[in-house]
């Protein structure tokens, strides 16, 4: 976990599945099967993209560029994000 200077909450990296609901997060790494990674990137979840988790159920509901994506939990496990806040886990 890396901390940085911030107004109130530390910046940290965590799997997307653990990032706080409603908080914006920046994708820093995608670790999953090549074709899934390729699919994620073209749908807007690429390294450097800003995403935010809307809801966590058996899948993750994510806002990506104004569209709603449902991502399987194991995929969201493999997406590392940089986020401001305390991981939900």
């Amino acid at each position: 976990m890396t901390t940085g200077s911030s107004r109130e909450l530390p910046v940290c990296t965590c799997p997307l599945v653990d990032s706080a609901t409603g908080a914006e997060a920046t994708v820093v790494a995608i670790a999953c099967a090549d074709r899934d990674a390729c699919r994620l990137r073209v749908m807007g979840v690429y390294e450097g993209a800003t995403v935010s988790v809307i809801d966590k159920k058996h899948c993750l509901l994510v806002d990506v560029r104004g569209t709603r994506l449902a991502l399987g939990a194991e995929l969201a496990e493999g997406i590392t994000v940089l986020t401001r806040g305390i991981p939900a886990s």
Partner: protein
Amino acid sequence: MGTPGSAPASGALRVAIIGNPNTGKTTLFNALTGLRQRVGNFAGVTVERVEGGFQMPDGRRITVVDLPGAYSLAATSPDERIALDVLRGHDGREPRPDVVLVVVDATHLGRNLFLASQVCELGLPVVVALNQVDAAAARGITVDVPALIHELGVPIVPTVASRGEGLDPLRRALVAAATLPAPTPRFALDESAETTAARYGWITDVIARTVRQRASASGSASDRIDAIALHRLGGPILFLVVMALVFQAVFSWATPVQDAIESGVLGVGHAIGQLVPEGDLRSLVVDGVFAGVGSVLVFLPQIALLFAFISVLEQSGYMARAAFLMDRLMRRVGLNGKSFIPMLSGYACAVPGIMATRTIEDPKDRLATILVVPLMSCSARLPVYTLLIGAFVPAMPLLPGLDLQGATMLAMYLLGTVAALGVAALFRRTLLRGPVRPMILELPPYRWPSPRSIAIIVWQRSVLFLRRAGTVILALSIVLWALATFPRTPVAPDAPPAVAQETQLANSALGRFGRAIEPAVAPLGYDWKIGVSILASFAAREVFVSTMGTIYGVGDAGESALADALRAERRPDGTAAYTPLIAVSLMVFYVFALMCMSTIAVTVREAGGGRIGWRWAAIQFAYMLALAYGAAWLVLVVGRAMGLG
């Protein structure tokens, strides 16, 4: 600068339409060409290749081909592969288009421009239709079109496809674009992490320079609906309520129209019968044609309603939510939620259901889904279920709005659905073993379905059904009538009509053939008449009802008369030939058996074609027949052991 678009050889300009799913691409295609086709609101409704055309005022012909919805040119699904092959000119049957029309959704430009920018790198002239500008304006989104044209370097025309706005400027832009050079490529056409990030980075900059969005205070209406529709507890309850309403409506709303059709068919059959002289010709018209085709025709309202409801679920965006809800269940059987969409379409018809599997990326997931889609009770089973339930299941009330007849019907649908899940699990653990693929699914914003496009779908499907009634079912009805009528058996002139008919039928070619195959169906408790009807219905399930209609010669008496005839039928020992138990066993047989030539043909094609396709189609046919026979037998044995029937 790229190379100018080559002049079309035939004189007709060829335009290919491409766009992300849910951009209104198919609606725009319909509006441009007037050609009727399905419109969808979830990934990949446009699975068939559809071509249309229009003519410019100067007489110039423009041909338009509607490509499947695609998020990128990465070709990760069969749908995207088709689109890429056509655009690159690699599809042997399809000439390369002269101009590409990219449809982008003005409310989701940040994602839609990804595909648009890739298409700009194919070396073809491009026109962009900026669609749904009305929805964008309603959400406070303003697009600076001249600035966007400058950024992309291609003509852009704002449109509202659902209202037909912007069509003339778009047509002119398409014709003009054919003489323009192709846009200059910006990035390599690959899907590497670096290129994708660079492309999205560029898009972010373009959006910043061309799009203004008024800040909105509250969440969107879609999010508020999703709070209920995707709720852990509320979501599944809402889903069950929606499905129950759909099925109840299909049966109760259709009844008055069915009654009207039945009396209409009776009236026409009777009137025409009077015009034809007494004899074999009148028998052919009344007992052959009207009995056969008429008994199937009455199911048109139910089939039309079922297609209407499935289309509403698709277009409103609810289908994607159902896939999301079902993901948890589908994972247990080794598939993901995406496979649920083709399965749900299978309730209407297995053919579009199997074609909808093209949006599934993983080949094993796709094949497993194809193999089980025909287990979902389709609209062609409705006539069989309705006839048998109407004849043998009392309308005993169970719950408010649900009686025993409705519950029996629901049980048949559930049985097929549960079997589909079980068989999928079996395939994913044996022939199609592999890890469960994680789901990546777009949940499109909720939209009001377009009544016009629902009407088009219902019309198309009704025409298809009527065409089948007018060809396959008509031909089979005439053949079966001939087999049941000849050779003639002399009967005593004073014999009652029922006895005379029975004697004639028993000695006819059909009767003899039926008794020859009777041993095959006897273990299920069926007599030769059911055996013959089952055999005839391997062409199409609804033929079962028309064959029964022909055998019992109820041509001018209608469906309720057929139900009466079935109830009154006696075995030689005087016991009832059809009991409620046999009716249930027969319905269970129809739940599982694959009796549809169209489904077999589409499975062959979609499972890989050629020998591989035939192999999977054979596996599908064989397992479903074995399941049907085994389950029908089990129902009979268990039922009898319980003292039923």
